[in-house]
């Protein structure tokens, strides 16, 4: 029963995308994927997603460390707020960034229509992944090892690099991979803030959306297949890593 349900809802529709992308032959598929606009959109998406994974790896780990090891007033509130991007609708995330970093911004910064805007939107929606995968590992980490290192004369940077970081690497990698996968397909938070200029600020999901609107379905399906392939690879890699967070607080 579960299998039938999943087939009707998930598998048959995704199979239809794959089938449709090659309806007009493999040549047409290849032409659609390698059209200049599609290549530009895919390249931008990949570049930004890699940047998002990298920034999250650093800042996500930093935030997790501060939440676990530091003590300050309001820490519980900060900890609770981390999940906000999962609860907040993506279109609201877009509006939110527009309010502060758009035209008429109280800061005077206007990034709308630039790649920085897209990067910011993607960082917003992927914020919880690394924090929430690193946090539990850091909490379980045995402090004795670190204390031993300190008593043997290691500085705090050495302790972090040689003892804490190696223990966190699997969690950082799986969190970043989830952030990457999410960034590759993200649409709602990006669409209002990116400007969506072909060749400049049009990401793959916005490109596909445009193709659907203009009834260029084969082209939309072909680029979708590339994104599907990417998601599958990342999913399998995370599974292979064996650390796919159960419960997937992955909005």
């Amino acid at each position, binding site marked *: 029963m579960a299998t039938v349900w999943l087939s009707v809802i998930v598998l048959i*529709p995704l199979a239809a995308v794959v089938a449709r992308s090659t309806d007009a032959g493999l040549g047409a598929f290849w032409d659609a994927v390698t059209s200049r606009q599609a290549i530009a959109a895919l390249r931008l998406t990949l570049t930004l997603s890699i940047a998002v994974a990298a920034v999250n790896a650093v800042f996500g780990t930093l935030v997790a460390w501060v939440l676990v090891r530091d003590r300050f007033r309001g820490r519980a509130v900060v900890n609770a707020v981390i999940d906000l991007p999962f609860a907040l609708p993506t279109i609201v995330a877009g509006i939110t960034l527009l309010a502060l970093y758009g035209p008429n911004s109280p800061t005077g910064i206007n990034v709308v229509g630039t790649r920085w805007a897209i990067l910011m939107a993607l960082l917003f929606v992927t914020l919880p992944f690394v924090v929430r995968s690193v946090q539990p590992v850091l909490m379980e980490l045995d402090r004795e090892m670190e204390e031993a290192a300190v008593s043997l004369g290691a500085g705090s940077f050495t302790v972090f690099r040689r003892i804490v970081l190696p223990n966190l690497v699997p969690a950082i990698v799986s969190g970043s991979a989830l952030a990457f996968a999410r960034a590759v397909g993200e649409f709602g938070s990006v669409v209002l803030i990116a400007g969506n200029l072909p060749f400049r600020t049009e990401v793959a999901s916005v490109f596909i959306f445009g193709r659907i609107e203009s009834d260029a379905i084969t082209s939309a399906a072909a680029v979708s297949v590339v994104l599907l392939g990417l998601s599958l690879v990342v999913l399998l890699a995370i599974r292979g890593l064996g650390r796919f967070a*159960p419960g997937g607080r992955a909005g």
Partner: protein
Amino acid sequence: MTVDRRARIGLRVLALAYLAALLLVPVAVVFYRTFEHGVGSVWESITTPAAIHAFWLTVEIALIAVPLNTVLGVITALALVRGRFRGKAVLQAVIDLPFAVSPVVIGLALVLVYGRNGWFGGWLTDQGIQIIFAVPGMVLATIFVCLPFVVREVEPVLREVGDEQEQAAATLGASRRQTFLRVTLPAIRYGIAYGVVISTARAIGEFGAVSVVSGKIAGQTDTLTLLVENRFQNFDVAGAYAASALLALIALATLLVMIGLRPRRDQS
């Protein structure tokens, strides 16, 4: 503490500044912008006929999608944990797919199956059933994106509690239905509740997939998130902020319920 005080405070400031710039200040500014002209205009903006229609459509879609996903999610989790059948590994992988697939691709996929020129489109048209560019398609899209939540919440709990109590109940003569209702269900209830809360938040907030299949028929297939976009594109920025603030409040409420449920869920 293995890190000296100055470094610790430096790291704290850096982390908090990052969160503030990316998350806290933008959300605060949205609320400020929304209410800067008074509560009255906000109330007017979220009680226009279009807004009320969008609100109820959002509720309706969530009320269909979430219960369906909950029931079938529990069944799927039971099958994954207790069942023995071929293709279980494949099923495991398929369940996570909605997390990784772009919402736009999900929308396109549904159009290609249930749309007028889709695989089942001809048959559906003959029956006089319209799915794409209508509410049923939006429900399907919502079910798709929310699919993993209940399964992935219930599955670890089921694994944790094991099946010894269920076997004991069966030996004592309980029927399968009784065993499920009296033994299994109480054990997983907080897991289910948590999954339901996340699914509901996701159902209310879904934009991309719903946008593709809705056809954007103003006043008919606008959900709250589509209303936000619609107003923004039509230069009704204040209206977009008002609808956003409403959605943000729903999100904050969800967050509070999640935090309230978490200790019980982690206990069970």
